[in-house]
Structure formats: structure tokens, C-alpha cells
């Protein structure tokens, strides 16, 4: 029996971390069935409190940063189904997540904006030094 596949449109953080807008994951049919109470595969209002597929991918990638994406998603579904909340914590925090929000905002600036901000910091630093 071939394993079912799901195409998932990623949004926000998931898209940033995975680096793609749409991913296709191949899942064990038993795990896919077990995921139904936790993942709103069809989206819409019926999804309720369940994870969106995009959030599932995000959490799976954080929990298993070094596994192929499909394996990571399967692993995360298995942990969800096991009910062990502590096991859902990221196994290894990806460097991107270690970077504070202020740094991530800096990284989003254009080259010229980075230079202008750096020059402003430099002027402020010099002013502080001179004020001593």
C-alpha cells in the first residue's frame, strides 16, 4: 500500500524556516489517522483547536531539525498521539530560533538600512563615550 501524501501550504514562520511555500509530505497511513484529533487537515471552521498543517510542519521541524521533513512530521504526530506533552518540546533549537526578535528585525533590513542603522549606533556610541 502506498503511503498517503499531503501538500501543505506554509505560512509565516514555517515558510521562513522551511524555505518553501508548499511542501509535500508522505505519511504513514496509521499515523495520518492518529493525527486527525490533533491536526485540522481540511482547515476551515472544523479545525477548531487543532493544529493547522503549517503549524504541524513548523513544530515538527523544530522538534526534529535534522530529519527529512516527512519523517519529522511522522515523528511529531507519533508524539502527539502518545500524549506526552514534554516530548513535544523542540529537541534542538535551530539557530534561527536562538536569535532574538531584535536581531531578526535587523536581518530583515535592506543593505542600505543596515548601514544607516549601524551609522546611527556608531554616532550614539561615540556620543556616549564623549559624554564620559
Amino acid at each position: 500500500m502506498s503511503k498517503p501524501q499531503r501538500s501543505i501550504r506554509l505560512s509565516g514562520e514555517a515558510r521562513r524556516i522551511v524555505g518553501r511555500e508548499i511542501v509535500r509530505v508522505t505519511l504513514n497511513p496509521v499515523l495520518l489517522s492518529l493525527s486527525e484529533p490533533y491536526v485540522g487537515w481540511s482547515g476551515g471552521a472544523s479545525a477548531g483547536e487543532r493544529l493547522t498543517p503549517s503549524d504541524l510542519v513548523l513544530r515538527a521541524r523544530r522538534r526534529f531539525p535534522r530529519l527529512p521533513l516527512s519523517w519529522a512530521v511522522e515523528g511529531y504526530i507519533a508524539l502527539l498521539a502518545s500524549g506526552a506533552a514534554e516530548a513535544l518540546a523542540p529537541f534542538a533549537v535551530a539557530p534561527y530560533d536562538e536569535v532574538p526578535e531584535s536581531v531578526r528585525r535587523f536581518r530583515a533590513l535592506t543593505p542600505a538600512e543596515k548601514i544607516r542603522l549601524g551609522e546611527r549606533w556608531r554616532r550614539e556610541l561615540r556620543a556616549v563615550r564623549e559624554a564620559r
Partner: protein
Amino acid sequence: MKASPDFDLIRFLKAAAARRIRFLLIGRWAVAQHGAPVVTADYDFWVDPGHRQRFLELLADTFDAELPPRERWQQPLISAYVGPDKVDCFSPRRLVNEEGQELVFKEVYARSRRKRDAAAGLAFRIPSIDDLIALKKFTQGDPMKRARNLEDIRYLLTLKGDQSHG
């Protein structure tokens, strides 16, 4: 020291591009371009040895920089001063860092990343993360410089890891 205004990096980068001078922005300004919010007072450039003269002339003519006498412009490291700012021009063909890694300008330039900001009309090049890390392994025994470089290397390794995960 002349009472000239601060060094305007954006203006300089545009002027150097207009004159087709081949160089890399290195040092902390390059680290910042890779995404690390670091601050520095100095400006460091690694200039193609064949373009050194043009680079220094631009600093002298357009930016009113204080430079050593022209007979010393063949040296591989020239420090210029623009107002209160120090601008270092490195121009050796090759460097060997403290770990014995050899860095050849042509090769580093070929691996470099082009930073382009269409809105600002700006385009320049910075070394790749790996090359910038290697370039950070020059401290000349200065403990303060070593500390700053280690901090920069940590940032760059984090950014590199981020990219490999992305």
C-alpha cells in the same frame, strides 16, 4: 585632524561602484550585512591590488581623507582618516590567517555575495560567511580585537547554521 564630516559609507560605496573599483567590504560592516546587529567605528575594505590606487584616490579626492604620502600607497595596508573615522584599505593578493588558512583575493571575491539595494541605488560585495569567519582570525595579539572577532564568529556561525536549516 581635519574637521571633515563623518565617513559616509553609502556614498562611498556608490562612488566606488561608479568608478568600477573592485573591492570587498570586510570587517564588522560585512558581519552586519550578513545580519548581525554589531556596531563598529572602523571601516575595512579588501581591495583588488590592481585597484588600490583608484581606491585611495577616491578616498583622497572625493572624501577628503587623510592618507599617508603617495610613495607609501603600495603598502598592503593603508589607513585613512575621514573626519573622526578610520578607513582601512587592505590590498594584499593573499593572506594567511592565524590558523594557517590561505585567502586569495581573487578566490574570495569569486565566492563573495553581492548585496544590492535597488531602492537606495546601492550594490557592493561582501565575503561569504566562511571567508568572513576566516578573515576574522587575524587579531595581531590584540585581546580586545580577539574578543570582538570571537563574538563576530559566533554570530556568523549562528547565521550560517540558520541558512543551512532554512
